[in-house]
Structures are given as C-alpha cells and as structure tokens.
C-alpha cells in the first residue's frame, strides 16, 4: 500500500501543477509533495524493517531494505531541494534570467515546466527503486533521462542546449548498452527458468536461481550493464556529460541528479552485481568494479586540482565519490559493502549542502568562476560561505565529519582484500582531491572584503543550508539506529559470501 502512495504522490503533484495558474500554488504543491514523499518513504522503510521485504502487485513491485534505503535517500534529497528550489527560482525570476527581456508569461510557463518535470523526474527514480522486474527498472532509468533533458535545457542558453544534447546522446548510448545487458541476462536466465511468464525477469526470482545461469553470457551481460549503469552514474570514461550537465542545469536539479540519480544507477548496478557474483563468483565482477572505481577517482583528481568553475568542481567530486562507492563494492566483503552504502548515505546528505552554497554564491556573484573570481565572500554571505567551507571539509572526507568513516571503511576493506597497492593509489588521490578542493574553496571564501553589498537574507535559500549542515555535523558522531538497521539489511543482501 505504501508503495502505491509513494508512486502516486509525484504523479498527482505533476498533474496538479500542470493545471495551476499562479506561482504560489505551484510552490505550495511542490513543497507538500516533498514532505509527503519523505513521510511515505520513511513509513515504507519502517514496514520493510519490520517485515524484511514488502511486495505488491503479485511481485511486480518489490521493496527490500536496499531499495528502501535508496528510496529514503532520494526522498530526503527531494524534500531538501524543494524549499531551496522555491527560493532559487524566485531569485532567478527577479534577476530576469528565467525569461528573456522580462516577459512574465514566458517566465510562468517555464516555472510550470519546472514544477511539472521535477515530480515526474522523482517518480521515475522511485519506479527504479520499486520495480522488481529488471526490464521495468530499465524503462524507469530511461525515463529519468528523458524527464531531465528538459530540466537541463531549463535556461535555454546555447551552452545548456549543448549540455542537454551531450547528456541525451551519451545517456541514450549508455542505456541502450544497459538494455542489451538486461536482454542477455534474461537470455542466460531463460534456459534455467524456461517459459516466458511475466515473473521471469523479476529480480527476486532470478536471484534464487543465479548459480545456474549461463556463464559466458552472464560475463558479457555484466560488462554491458556496468558500462550502461556506469554511464548513468558517471563513472570514468563515461563521465564526460556530468560536468556540462551540472554546470548548466538549475542548482536543485543538479543537486538531485548528483545524489539521487547516482544512487539509483548504483542501485541498479548492485542488483546485477549480486546476480553476477552468484553466477560467476566474486573475482570477475570485483576486478571490473575496482578498475572503474579507481579510474573515476584518478580522473577526478587532476580536474579538481586545476578547476576554474565551482559547479564543475562539484561535478568531478560526484564522479570521485561514485568511484569510491564502486571501489567499495569492488573490494567486497561486509566491510566494503557497508563502506559503500554508508558512503552513499553520507554523500547524499553532504553533496546538496555544497550545491546550495554554490548556488547562493553564484546567484550573488553572477558567475561560478573561482580562480580570478570573487574572494572574501565570508563578509558578504555570512551563512552560505562558512557552510561552504564546512561542506568542503565534509565532502573531502576530513575526519570529524561522516564521509571519513565510510572512506576509512572502504580503505579497511581494501586492506582486508589484500589490495595494498590500490589502497595506496586511492589514498593518494583522496589527498590530492582534498588539496585541490580546499585550496579553491578557501580562495573563494576567505580574503579581504571586496566591498560588495551584503547579500539580502532569503529564508528559502538559507534555512535548507542551515538544516543540512546540522545534519552533516550530527552524522559525524551519531547514526540513528533505524538507519543503521536499514544499512545492515542492505549489506546482508549485497555482501555475497565468496
């Protein structure tokens, strides 16, 4: 029952907004949908904790603790993004960036498009998490891409069009590879299950028979799946669309994409990882995952070191954290998987904080340049700038904050699985990324006052920043017990005993 509510709220919100005339109404629906979604996701997680797994529509929709975790995280990000989006778009409207030469009607149309597409975008993400059938999961991922294309071209600038085109093309190719992988998985499962009943492609059914699948087909299938979902998650060599898309999309969309879409893509990858390790044994899959994980971290490091735009720096940071999660999964064992899931949780909490701060800074200074751009922002943005510094410390895995614990756990997994050389490379890249990231942020935040007027205090844009930073600090020292049980359940699903 909670699953249907979870899916229907966004659809309902999308439909309602399409009919709205006034901006206040759209914002109200947007906010309500955010809060409603988080409440439903939380109750769904509660019921999953109580009964292990929840399914409805005779197995078509299936939620276990892994999907409940990702659902809760997605709902959390959406809930946090909605108030910020209201403040952000109001500021855009007053700046006149929404509609060329102040045409109010066009601005309203564009706002309606935003408030319609966002719930649709979230609906597809929840569908990914909830779908038991791997084919339906692929359809849901494909539709997230389609829904978000027009969000990326929201501002209609030539560069945003260019970013959208790259996003569409690379996303399209990646996802067709994923489709091919799904087809091959179905083919390798076909001999064993036989018959083409509707439940033939259901994950819960497949996972029980995984040992008997056809080995070479499964190997090819996992390669294609890894490339497909890797493109969606933005792992290196397929990461090239990410910096452009995050740079051009509105900040709330970028925040949602960099955390929720990354989580869903890795969720899909994890589903197939379980099937492959059951069928082929852990060696094949973890070597590939380690390769792509390290590649992503290695590619992200130099770009962050010499980066000139803050939004692109955050994009590369997402690529780096995607790489760390995949590396954790690759190292395997309870430690590696727990490290990955904790990293996913903490990243989902920390990254939006950074995006909101960058958003506030960009709207104040007008551009997101770092090198010769503004400095001494702490005098002008008294809350966003310090929180940006705090977020920078958190996201680079500096110990007092939570990301350190998950990164350290991934490192321990690396040592446990005798990958000493790789762990050294991993630590080196993490330190290099910290140097680049923190260097740029301090140049932006600290420094003499540049005489610009102090930013007008806007409630919608500042309270999410404050709320998120308290959560980030609290997460450093204490983890709520139900969340940890959810993590534990998810680990038991993923950690395939070799």
């Amino acid at each position: 029952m909670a699953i249907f509510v979870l899916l229907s709220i966004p659809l309902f919100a999308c439909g309602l907004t399409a009919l709205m005339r006034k901006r206040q109404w759209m914002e109200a629906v947007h906010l309500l949908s955010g809060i409603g979604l988080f409440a439903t996701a939380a109750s769904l997680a509660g019921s999953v904790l109580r009964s292990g797994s929840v399914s409805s529509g005779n197995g078509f929709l299936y939620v276990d603790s892994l999907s409940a975790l990702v659902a809760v995280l997605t709902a959390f990000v959406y809930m946090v993004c909605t108030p910020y989006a209201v403040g952000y778009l109001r500021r855009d409207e007053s700046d006149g960036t929404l509609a060329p030469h102040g045409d109010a009607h066009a601005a309203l149309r564009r706002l309606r498009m935003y408030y319609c597409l966002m719930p649709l975008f979230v609906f597809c993400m929840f569908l990914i998490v909830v779908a038991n059938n791997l084919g339906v999961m692929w359809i849901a991922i494909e539709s997230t891409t389609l829904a978000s294309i027009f969000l990326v071209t929201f501002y209609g600038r030539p560069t945003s069009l260019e970013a959208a085109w790259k996003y569409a093309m690379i996303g399209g190719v990646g996802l067709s590879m994923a489709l091919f992988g799904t087809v091959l998985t179905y083919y390798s499962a076909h001999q064993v299950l036989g018959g083409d009943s509707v439940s033939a492609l259901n994950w819960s059914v497949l996972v029980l028979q995984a040992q008997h699948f056809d080995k070479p087909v499964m190997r090819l299938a996992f390669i294609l799946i890894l490339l497909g979902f890797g493109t969606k998650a933005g792992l290196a060599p397929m990461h090239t669309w990410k910096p452009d898309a995050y740079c051009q999309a509105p900040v709330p969309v970028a925040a949602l994409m960099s955390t929720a879409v990354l989580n869903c893509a890795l969720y899909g990858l994890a589903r197939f990882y379980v099937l492959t390790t059951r069928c082929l044994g852990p060696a094949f899959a973890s070597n590939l995952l380690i390769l792509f994980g390290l590649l992503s971290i290695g590619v992200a490091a130099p770009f962050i070191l010499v980066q000139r735009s803050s939004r692109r720096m955050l994009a590369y940071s997402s690529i780096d954290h995607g790489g760390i999660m995949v590396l954790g999964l690759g190292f395997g064992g309870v430690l590696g998987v727990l490290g990955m899931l904790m990293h996913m949780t903490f990243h989902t909490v920390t990254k939006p904080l950074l995006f909101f701060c960058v958003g506030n800074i960009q709207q104040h200074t007008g551009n997101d340049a770092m090198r010769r751009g503004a400095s001494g922002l702490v005098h002008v943005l008294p809350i966003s700038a310090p929180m940006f510094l705090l977020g920078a410390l958190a996201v680079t895995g500096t110990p007092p904050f939570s990301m350190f614990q998950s990164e350290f756990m991934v490192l321990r997994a690396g040592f446990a699985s005798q990958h000493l050389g790789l762990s050294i490379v991993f630590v080196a890249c993490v330190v290099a990324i910290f140097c680049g990231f923190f260097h740029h942020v301090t140049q932006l935040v600290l420094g003499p006052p540049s005489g610009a007027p102090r930013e007008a205090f806007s409630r919608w844009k500042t309270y999410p920043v404050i709320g998120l930073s308290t959560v980030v600090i609290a997460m450093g020292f204490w983890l709520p017990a139900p969340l940890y049980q959810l993590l534990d359940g998810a680990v038991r699903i993923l950690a395939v005993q070799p």
Partner: protein
Amino acid sequence: MWPICELYSAGLLVYAVAALAGLTAHLRKTTAAWIAPLLCYAAIAAAALEFSASCGALFAGAAFDWSLPSGIQSIHYGVCLDPLSAYFNMALSLLAVCVGVYSVGYLRHGAASRRPGLFCCFFNLHLLSLTLVFTASNIVFFLIAWELVVVTAYFLVVTDHESTEVRRGGILYILMSRGGTGLMFLGFLLLASAAGSMEFQAMHGSGEKLSPVLGASAFLLLFFGFGVKAGIIPLHIWLPAAHPVAPSNVSALMSGIVIKTGIYGMARVFFDFYGVLPVWTGMLVLVAGVVSALLGVLYALMEHDLKRLLAYHSIENIGIILMGFGSALLFRSFGYPQLAALALVAGLFHTLNHGVFKCLLFLGAGSVLQGAGTRNMEEMGGLIRRMPWTALYFLIGAVAISGLPPLNGFVSEWFTYQGLLAGFGTTSTLTRMAFPIAGALLALTAALAAACFVKAFGITFLALPRGESAEHAMEAPASMKTGMALLAASCVVLGLGATWFIPIFAPITQRALGVQITQQLVAGNSLVLTAGSVRNGSVSPLMLALGLVALGVVPFALWLAPGRKSSRVTGPSWDCGLPGLTAANEYTATAFSKPLRMIFGALFRPRREIQAEFDVSPYYPKAIHFESEIEPTFETHIYEPIWTAIQAIAARMRKIQTGSIHAYLAYIFVTLILLLLFGVRG
C-alpha cells in the same frame, strides 16, 4: 583515591561547553568585552582539571578507559589514560593553563579581538581535540581527533584571513598535514591488519607480526606521517609559514604542544607497537634528528622576523628530541634496554622542556608584537626599558632554550649527551662513530642556538630603539605578564627540581622498554642527576645554582674591599668622535648573523645587492640601499618543482574534456571494444 575519570571527563565537558558558548556568542554577533576573558577562564579551568587528572594518572599509576558508542557497530570512541598519554596530557594542560592566562589579556586587541566568540570557540575546540588525540585508545578515534586538531588549528591560524600571507601559511599547513594524515592511514592500517583489531591495546607489539618488508614500510609511512606534523627537515616548510602568522597565543600553543602530537605518535608507534626494530630505523631517526637540529638552527640564525626565528627553533628542538628517540631505538636494537630507557627519558623530558620555554618565548614575542607593533627585529631595540618584565621572561626563555645551566634546557640536553656518550661503547661496528658525531653536532647546534638568542634578545630588547614604533612600546598588561611568569617559573622549577620530576618517567619506560631506570638516574638523596650511576657522570642543577649565588659574595667582597666609595657616572658610549650616538650606529640582526652566513655560505648561497647614491664626491655616498637574502633551498629545489609538475600534468589531463561529443562517444566506444576483447575472455 584520585578521581581521574571524573576530573578528565569534567575537563572535556568544560571545553565543549566553552566552545558552544563561544559559537553562540559569535552567531548572536555579541562582541562584548567580557566574552573572551570568560571563555579563557573556562579554558583555564578545564586545563586545570585535565592537569590534575593526568598528574593523578601519572603519580597514582591508575589508568582508566571508557568508550562512547557511535551508532556504528564497528566504531566506538574509546579513551584510555596510560602513562605515556598522561605525560603528554599533563604537558598539554600545563601549557594550556599558561596560554589561557596569557590570552585573557592578549585578546583585548589584535586580529582575534574582531571575532572573539569564534576565536574562543575554535581555541577551546582545539584544546579539546588535543586532549582527545593524546588519550584516544583506538585508531579511528585517534585519526578523528588528529584531523580535528589540524582543522581547528587551521581556523585559528587564519583568524586574520584578510592578509594573503596568513592564508598562504594556513593553506600550506592544512595541505601538508593532510598529506601526513594520508601516510598515517596506510601505516596504521598495515599494523591493524597484523594486529587484527583497531584497539591500541591489541596493537601492542603488533609490528613483529608483519613480514619484514611490510613492517619496514609501515614504520616508514608512520615515521614520515608523524614527521610532517613534527616538522622534520624535508617536511618542515609549513612550520615557518604557518606559526608566525597565527595569533601569538595560538602559535605558542602550536609550537609548544601541537607539533608534539607528532612526537607522541612516534613514541606510541616506535615503543608501544613495535618490539625490536632493525638498526637502520634507529639510524634514520637519529640522522633525521641531527639534520633537523642543525639546519633548523642555521635557518633560524638568518631570520630577522622574531616569530619565524622561533618557528625554525621549534624544528631544531624537534631534532634534539628525535636524537633522543633515535639513540633509544638504536640501544634497543643493540640490546641495551637500560641505555634505551635513559635516551627515551632524555627525549621525553626535552619534549616537555621545549614545550615550556618555546611557549614562553612565543608569548614574549606576542607581547613584543603587541607592544612594539612589528615582528621585524630590525625596527625594534631598547624595549627592555619600556617592557622590563617581558624582557626578563624572554631572557629566561632564551637562557633555557640555549641549554645553559641551571635551567631545564640544560638538564634534558645533558641527558641527551650522556645517552650519546654511552652509545659509543654499545656496538663494535662503525655505527658507534655516529653517536659522538651526533654529540659534536648537538654541541654545535646548542652553541648556534645560544648565538641566535643573543641576537634575538640583544637586537630586540637592548640598546636604542631602531624604529619609532619601538620607541612608544607599552608594557604587556597584567594577565599576559602572569602567563609568562608562570611559564618562566616552571622553566626554573623544571630545571632546579629535575631530580624530583624524573621519577615520573618510571611507568612510561616500564611499559615501553620493560625496564625502570629512574632510580639509577637520581642519587645523593635526590639532589644529583646521574647518567645511569654516579660513577659515569652526574650533575645537580640545584647545587650549581646555589653555588652561583654563594660565590656571588666573592666579587662583591672584591668590589667593596678597597674602602673608598668610587664614583659612578653615566655618560655616552664611545662614538669615535662622531656627533652623538644614534640608533643607526647599532649592530643590526642581519649584520650579527653575517659571519655565520659567510661560513655556512654553501648552504645559504647568500645573495646581496648594494645601491649607493652619491651627490658630491664618490667617497661619501648620500644613501646606501642594502638588500641581502638567502636561498630557501627546500622550497625552490624540492617543493616548487613538484607542485609545477603536478599542475602541468593536471592541465594536460584537462584536455580529456575537449568539448566535442564525438570524442566523448569515442571514449565509451573504445572502452566497450577493449572490454569485449579482453573482458569476455577473462
């Protein structure tokens, strides 16, 4: 009988409450005058609590440990106050009390007074995290506390972040510390994988379980990881950049105790986690110590910025401490636990001594900076007349740091000498020559330190003021003077009362090396310090001091003997007949260090340029402009090339994101082809 646990946790609580109060005060934008002193008093109270807790742990020998659940099963925040932690915690809290008293007056003006709440919040958080670093009992909590120290220290260093020099120092500090922490991650995990658990108790002696290669690499990783924080020579460049720009009470704390966290880490790893180490490890530590000491003091001599001079001296004294540790390691690997205990006591005692007198000197420099308004020694002079008390305390610190009797610097250097002296007989291989050579270089270092502090004290405080800001210098307020007085007193007490202080090390050497040496180190009903036994050399700073005072009678007698009261007139010094003596005639800091700059020219490669303007005759220049500088060898030859190489590689890597969609699709296409060719077969 001694409520250690309650005192300790009460101390932590007071720190935390003070930090939160500071934060709320800052957020509510109250810059009332009473905020800073109140929070400093809180810090003093907390430090006093910690001091009594650690003294209790040391004297009563009672250790305790409790842990805080962290919500994640595999990580819990454990704390344990064993002898080594108690010793360092005691040193920390002693310095924290003195710096706290000093800060009450210091925070009235200067960069920190613009944001008192925030400064006090980070100050208390910094002390809290330092206490946790010394008392953490598992790796994760140790690393969390360690990085919290780095982060809070960074925010304290950049309080005056308006100036670029401050920001550059801060960023250099945090980046290099983070590099060091990265090395420590790897080293600790190697040991943990051998010990099978993250607890310090379980890791006791875990170094043996590792294979020789892994054991050696873990040792090197941890040595250089802690070395970055301690400021050993090749990894030291952040120290002279960060300490001078910080507010003086912060740089006093940083030089006094924060770099000692590196020393604590080394002591914990070398003597607790490793049983017996190969000989080359001890030699490496000894050589690093000698090099750091010698180069540290040589660079200090060339400085004419008072706080940079003191920062370089921290490197020198860390070198001396490492000499103690290095010889202790060598003795242990040669199989002489008694001598190893002597050398370890020398190193640990010098850690405390250096903490005390370096803190005193930085506080002195701070009050000079506030009084005379400048850090450059060339513009100071004659401050002894206007700031008599600061001058006296600075003088006591200078005498102590130069290792002159009867103060505490002399006692710990005396122990180091005795350790090196005894080392000659311990082995027959050529390494026996290392000890006397190290001893000779230590003597050279001590003498150069004396020369450096004659320059520092003489140019800053004596003769005529060179700049007009020095002319109107004001004496430091009462609280700053009391802070310095406390430290000066502890310098004297640690010096004269060393015989009562040495037994503290008994439990430490017992746990680390399994041998109690302190009975042999103290003899003559605890009046005399000996090097193992009275027979092989003894010294008694107390008796020497009494001797000096008693013998004072002889010169007085000689002065009064001839009966008739001789006249005593004050007149101008000899000015070679020039019209009156001005400040321009005085020797400057650069001139004072010129002979040594010429002698050690190979190291400094000094460069100078002189432009003289003449108007009438070529023999009498109207004005001479003199500029001389030495080459910062480490920055130009090691760090800049590496940094530019990294930037170049990163810039070239940026070409990947060319902007053309064909390239992007080609990347994926090639990856697919490669995986199909090799992946499927694999």
